[in-house]
């Protein structure tokens, strides 16, 4: 059973190794002539103003939170879809109620304006 995952780990390892070798090869082959201007942060030719580690719009955070809620819903749907033939009409009704509850939340966040980007 778990044996079928060995090739996947080999693939992951090989792909990661490929990335590592390429990056190291580039460091080794490329020239190395640093200067203060070259190593400064790019800001369209201006002197960089402060750092980039600053506050950013809360919208991105909202999207992440909403994503977690709906992604968990999707994850719940997967086993249901695979076992659908055995569950029949009862299984469908149960899941319909589940989706309905989530839809209420979906329309709530829509009305609240969490999905607006202005």
């Amino acid at each position, binding site marked *: 059973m778990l044996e079928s*995952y060995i*090739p996947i780990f080999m*693939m992951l390892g090989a792909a990661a190794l490929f*990335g590592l070798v390429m990056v190291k*090869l580039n460091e080794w082959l490329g020239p190395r002539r640093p200067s203060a201007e070259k190593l*400064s942060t790019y800001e369209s030719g201006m002197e960089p103003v402060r750092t980039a580690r600053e506050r950013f719009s809360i919208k991105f955070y909202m999207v992440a939170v909403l994503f977690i809620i709906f992604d968990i819903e999707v994850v719940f749907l997967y086993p249901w879809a695979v076992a659908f033939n055995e569950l*029949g009409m009862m299984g469908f009704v149960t899941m319909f109620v589940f989706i309905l509850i989530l839809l209420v939340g979906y329309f709530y966040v829509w009305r609240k304006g969490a999905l607006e980007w202005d």
Partner: protein
Amino acid sequence: MNLIEPLVKVVLILAVMLTLVILLVYSERRISAFIQNRIGPNRVGPKGILQAVADVVKLLMKEDIVPKNANKPIHDLAPMISIGVAMSTFAVIPIGGTMVLLGQSVRLMLADVNIGILYILALTSMGVYGITLAGWSSNSKYSLLGGLRSSAQLISYELSMGLSIVGVLLIAGTLQLDGIVQAQSAYIGGWLPAWNVFLQPVAFVTFVVSAFAETNRLPFDLPEAEPELVGGYHTEYSGLKFGLFMLSEYVNLVVASAIIVTLFLGGYSVPFAEYMNLSAQTVSLIQVLTFCVKTAGVILFFVVIRWTLPRFRYDQLMDLGWKVMLPIALANLVVTGFILAAFS
């Protein structure tokens, strides 16, 4: 357990992927040149076919610049995550049935795990890390905003992607990609191949649109919108680290096309092949060929779209993802479930 066979397959996948990407970059540049009435690269090698190889060698010899304020270990790690995840996704995609090679019957896929689709979704979510970490670790405002936008875009469209797959799962009843291909080798009404594109047309459309967004292709290539964000999350990358991001973008394109073919276009199955009295070996050869042709067709579609449509604005992109794609995918799921429950 025999470890030689998967090892050979892993090396083959890596080699074939890299060759494919090199050819793909070349053909995309030639096709775009054709669309825009230019000539395109035609100097390196016959007809310019080695242009992409020359590009890789050039990037390899370039200086690897890491900005002073950047977080070096993460700055190095991000492109490796991107390329590693992109390459590994191919591990579960079946490119054919079983074939006899060197006196051994070989499955034409790397790992036949029973959670194939979950694995693909898990890895596409991992891909977000590469981009977000690249944007954050560069410590540049352009990179940070590009990375943030990109991760918000990727996770938004992952929802409709995941939901449209559920429609396919309802019909196939398995998460195993090989099982989904087998389920599509039947016929509707005795003549139309039971491909999910016919059974689930709405899911097909939402999935393809999400795949465009997930691979950062136009009209969804906002992560690197040049006029506003310079290079987006890879503004501060140079040399082959920049090349690895480009590479993983193209690998993602190949993988996304292969997934679309597997889930919706019948995968490697060849309609009506069982009526032709072919030997098992010929059939599996044709299957591999069919898979390649179908995938190439989808890739061509991606390339032509890229040079046809303008780019979305960011608010339009988010509106489409949350207010259009998500409800459509959910409605499709409910309707499919109802029909299946009522008529089976």
